Every structure is written in C-alpha cells, then in structure tokens.
C-alpha cells in the first residue's frame, strides 16, 4: 500500500487532537483526532449530520473551535480567521463551487497567488521593476496551474461560463496557487456525473503523486475507498473508525452507522 510506503519517515502535515465544537445544545464535534501524513490522501466520511462539514469549517478557520490543538507541518496554528489559515497553508475548495464568476479563469488563479506575493499600492502605481517581475511570475504560475488541471485553453474565459467539471478543476487550481501544505476538498464530486468523477479522481491522484497532501470530505463512498490512503469515519461528532479503506469498510460500527443497527445483527 502506498500508505505504508509514505509512512516511512514522512512528516505529519496536519495534526488535530481533541477538536470540539458545540452549537447551542448540539455537540457537533467531540474529541476528534486526525492526523494526515505528507503525500497522503486522507478521507473523511460519515452519514449526513455526522460533523464532517463542521470539522472542515473548524480546521479552515470558519468556526472557532471550543477545544483542541491544531498543528500544521509541525507548527501550531490557531484556526481563528479564514485568511490566516490560508496563509498558514491550508487551501480549500467549497462544496458549492465559489469562484470569482466574472473574472477570467486565469485571473481566478492569479488571485490564489495573492497570499504568496507582496507587491502593494506603490509598486502597482509606479510599476517598479520588482512589481513587473512579480506580476509576470504570478501570470506564469497561474498559467502553469491551469495547464496542470487541464483547462489551460479556457484561461481567458469568464469563470462562470465554464462547465461544472471545469469550474471544479479551476477551483482546485486556484487553491493550489496558494502553495498549500494541505489541500482540503469539500465534497468535490458533489453534483458530478460519472465521467467528471473519473477526471476528478485522476486529478487528485496526480496531485498526490506530486507529493501534495489532500484532505477529502466526500459523500461518495466508492470514490473515497478507491482514492484514499486513510479514511476517518465520523458519526454524531465522534470518530468511530480510522484506518485503511479496507479496514474501515469491515468495521462493525461503520456498517451500523451507514446501514442501521439491525443490519449486522
């Protein structure tokens, strides 16, 4: 298994311990532990309302957690503000795609470079050599990424006019533009047809083979089992199983959570 291969000496990219989040009377997350090693695709699954999205929003800074420690590439980080998490190195995509619809595909990806570039007002107004150099760099990287996800030919098209599958790929390219330690995908296959799913799966595999780390939240169990190195199953805000896809699939609590208590009796 590739999971075993990459374990040897590789660093932990994301380490979450004891994450908890309460909304009023609902304990949405309690004591969730999750660690993801570099170069892995980690899956997070669970039935509806299990807390997947809450967990996702907590680690990306959208909801401040009530408890838990969070480390990214060995550095503790505080998931307190979305833009700081992005700067720290987690890039996300959204379940319902959120591009900048009236900007071109290229410009969308160029926005992704914002957090790794520095030029300000004066550079822009005076067009300093440093500004020009950086601008050229940004455009080049953005083009490269469009090529990487396979939509380079749409560079000058408005994002809103791309097909659904292409919009998803554009969103991934934009996220990759931030040079993330961890690429977090929130149900990327939602609403995709079978062909689009295959393209997406191949893209995520390629991203992994380039040494990047991916957290995948997904409803589609088949996609998760076929793609992930490790899978974590949440139910009622708690981790009920963790391991390789094969281990998780046989786990009695997982079967119960998905199929109901009566099934394995």
């Amino acid at each position, binding site marked *: 298994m590739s999971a075993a291969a990459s374990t040897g000496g590789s660093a932990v990219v994301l380490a979450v311990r004891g994450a908890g989040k309460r909304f009023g009377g609902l304990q949405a997350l309690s004591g969730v532990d999750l660690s993801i090693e570099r170069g892995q695709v980690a899956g997070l699954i669970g039935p509806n309302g299990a807390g997947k999205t809450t967990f996702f929003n907590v680690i990306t800074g959208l909801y401040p957690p009530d408890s838990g420690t969070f480390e990214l590439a060995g550095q503790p980080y505080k998931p307190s503000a*979305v833009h700081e998490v992005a700067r720290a190195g987690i890039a996300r995509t959204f379940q319902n795609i*959120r591009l900048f619809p009236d900007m071109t595909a290229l410009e969308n990806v160029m926005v992704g470079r*914002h957090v790794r570039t520095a030029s300000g007002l004066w550079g*822009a107004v005076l067009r300093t050599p440093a500004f020009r150099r950086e601008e050229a760099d940004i455009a080049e990287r953005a083009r490269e990424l469009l090529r990487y996800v396979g939509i380079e030919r749409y560079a*000058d*098209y408005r994002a809103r006019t*791309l097909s659904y599958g292409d919009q998803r790929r554009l969103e991934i390219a934009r996220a990759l533009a931030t040079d993330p330690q961890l690429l977090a995908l929130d149900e990327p296959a939602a*609403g995709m047809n079978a062909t689009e799913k295959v393209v997406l799966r191949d893209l995520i595999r390629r991203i992994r083979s380039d040494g990047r780390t991916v957290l995948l939240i997904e409803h589609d169990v088949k996609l998760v089992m076929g793609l992930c190195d490790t899978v974590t199953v949440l139910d009622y805000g708690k981790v009920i199983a963790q391991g390789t896809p094969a281990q998780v699939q046989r786990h009695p609590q997982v079967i119960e959570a998905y199929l109901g208590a009566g099934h394995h009796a």
Partner: protein
Amino acid sequence: MTLKSSRMQLLAFAVAAVALVVLPLFVQPIGSGWVRIMATALLYVLLALGLNIVVGYAGLLDLGFVAFYAVGAYMVALLTSPHLAEQFTWFAQHFPQGVHTPIWVVIPLAALLAALAGVLLGTPVLKLRGDYLAIVTLGFGEIIRVFMNNLEHPINITNGPRGLDRIDPVSVFGFSLGRPLDVSLPWGELRIASVTMYYWLFLLLVVVSVVICRRLEDSRIGRAWMAIREDEMAARAMGIHTRNMKLLAFGMGATFGGVSGAMFASFQGFVSPESFSLMESVMIVAMVVLGGLGHLPGVIVGALMLAALPEVLRYVAGDIQSMTGGRIDAAILRQLLIALAMIVIMLLRPRGLWPTPEHGRSAMAEGPEGLPGSGGGRA
C-alpha cells in the same frame, strides 16, 4: 490587432489629446462661464474616478462620498483663507503673512487627510455589507456636512453656513492661476483666462488619476478588490485580508475625493456646507452607475454628462422660462429633465452608458464541442 490599426489608435488618441488641451482656448471667447463648466466637470470626473475604486472595484456602496470632497475643500479653505488668522490671535502671530501653501503641499496633504478620513469611516463599518453599508456611509456624509455647518460655536472654526471666502487661488512655482495670463505669439496677443489654466490643471490631474486607476486595476491589489466584490468568502479563503483590502479601497478612493475638494476650494475661492449636500453624493454615485460600474471610460463619460447636463440645461431652462412667462421655474425644469435623462438611460442601457465589455470570453457561447475531456458540463 495589426500594426496599422494600433498606429491608427495612437493617432486618434493624440488628436483627441490635442483637442482636449486646446478646446478651452476656442471656448473662452464665447464666455469664460463655459470653460468654468468644463473645469468643474473635470473635478466631477476626479470624484467619480475615486468613487469607482470603492464601488466599482471593491463593490462597497458608499453614499457619503462627498464627505471626502468636503474634507479636502475645507482643509484648503482653512489653510489659505484669512479666516483662522482673524479668529485666533495665536494663529495670526505665528503666521503673520498667512499660510499660503503651494500646490505641491496642498495636493498630498488633501490626499492624506481624506485617506485618513476614509480609513476612519471604514474601520467601524466594514463588517456591514450592501444596503447597511450604504446607509451608514450616507450618515457619515451628512455628519461631516452638519459639522461644517455648526463648528462656529463656541469656537468659530468653519464659519458655519456663511462659509469661508477669500481662499487663495492655486499657485504653481509662485505663479498664481487666479489671474489671466497674457502671452504674445507671433500672430498677436493671446489672453489665457484664469479658468482655462484651471481647466488644464484639472485635465492633468484627471489624466494622472486615470493612469493610477488603470494600473491599480491590473495589479495584485486590484485583483484582490475584485475578488472581494465577486465573492468575499472565497476571497478570504484565498488568504486575502479582506478588512485591510477594503480599508485600502476606502482610503484610496477618498484620496481622489480629497484632491478634488482641495481643487474645488481654490478654484471657487469660497466654500460653504451647501456644496456638500447628500444630493452631491447621490450625483456622484449616479455618475459611476450611469456611466458603467468599474469601467473607466464609462465612469468618465457618466461624470462628464451628469456634471455638464445641469449647467447646459441652466441656459436652456432660462429661455423656456421666459417663453412661458415665468410659469415654468428654471430650477424645477432642470431637475425634471435630469430625472428624465436618468430614467431613459437606465431603461435603454441598464448596465450603464459604456459598461465593461463582457470581460473575457464565454465557453458556453462556443457550444459543447469546444469542451475538451471535461466530461461535458451542465448549464
């Protein structure tokens, strides 16, 4: 684009530039009032360009933009009119000659002060969005005006509704734009009116502003602004510090307003709170929106049109008034015609007179066969 057509463009551009520069020389014999209208229109262009940064680029609806105009105007008025020296003996002692600031100090100072006001306004309100932001900025605009109107008791700072007069004209290298300039040319004497020189100064400021806006648009900062306008949540997820970027937009936009106000004060020689009413803010927003939100040529056309229209109508309305024996009041007619013009524009061109051309291309328009192995999309 062939080389020939780009050369044609350059030629057209040069012709237009020369025409703009010499235009007032031909207009001033008809009456310097017309040149004055042209110069005032350029000040409105400056205001509209500033507001366009806030509304057009960053998508923050600001209905109190005139406040920054007021800040710039009052700054110059206080600095260069004898008012402060007359009110405060210590001021008169320190500056027995008065403070006569040259343009090189006035413009940066007005820009800085207005930017400060912009950030000051921005800081508490940036959590608000859309309509709520519009209401609060509207209030801010009114507050500034009310301040100017009432800051005469117990200490007379702004001279209240009577306003400040005897403001210095702009001076460039000790050369005052307030007096006409006589130049002798080989074919005779030419008298260049004061308003004509102001027109040139404002034209220069507009050109500089357009270059600044154009460069901002196409930069890391400009893209961040537009990203915020398009989807604030996604912009934040890309690591954009949305609060700082919005403050920057507010400050940058205010800068233009402040400079425009400073020029207005020097140009008129008189300011009073009346010039900074809510109606002015509404007009500036209308210029940006009618012209074409976020599109520089559109914004300029919108500003020129709305600034010139009332003045032109003023002349026409006078005639109509006398024709009807004074039954139709000029002011009312003017308002009616402007309202009519606005309604017609919005009906015929809902995205503005000269909107942003559909930016980039559309993948949908080219049909599904244009799509590569994306597995076919959904609409």
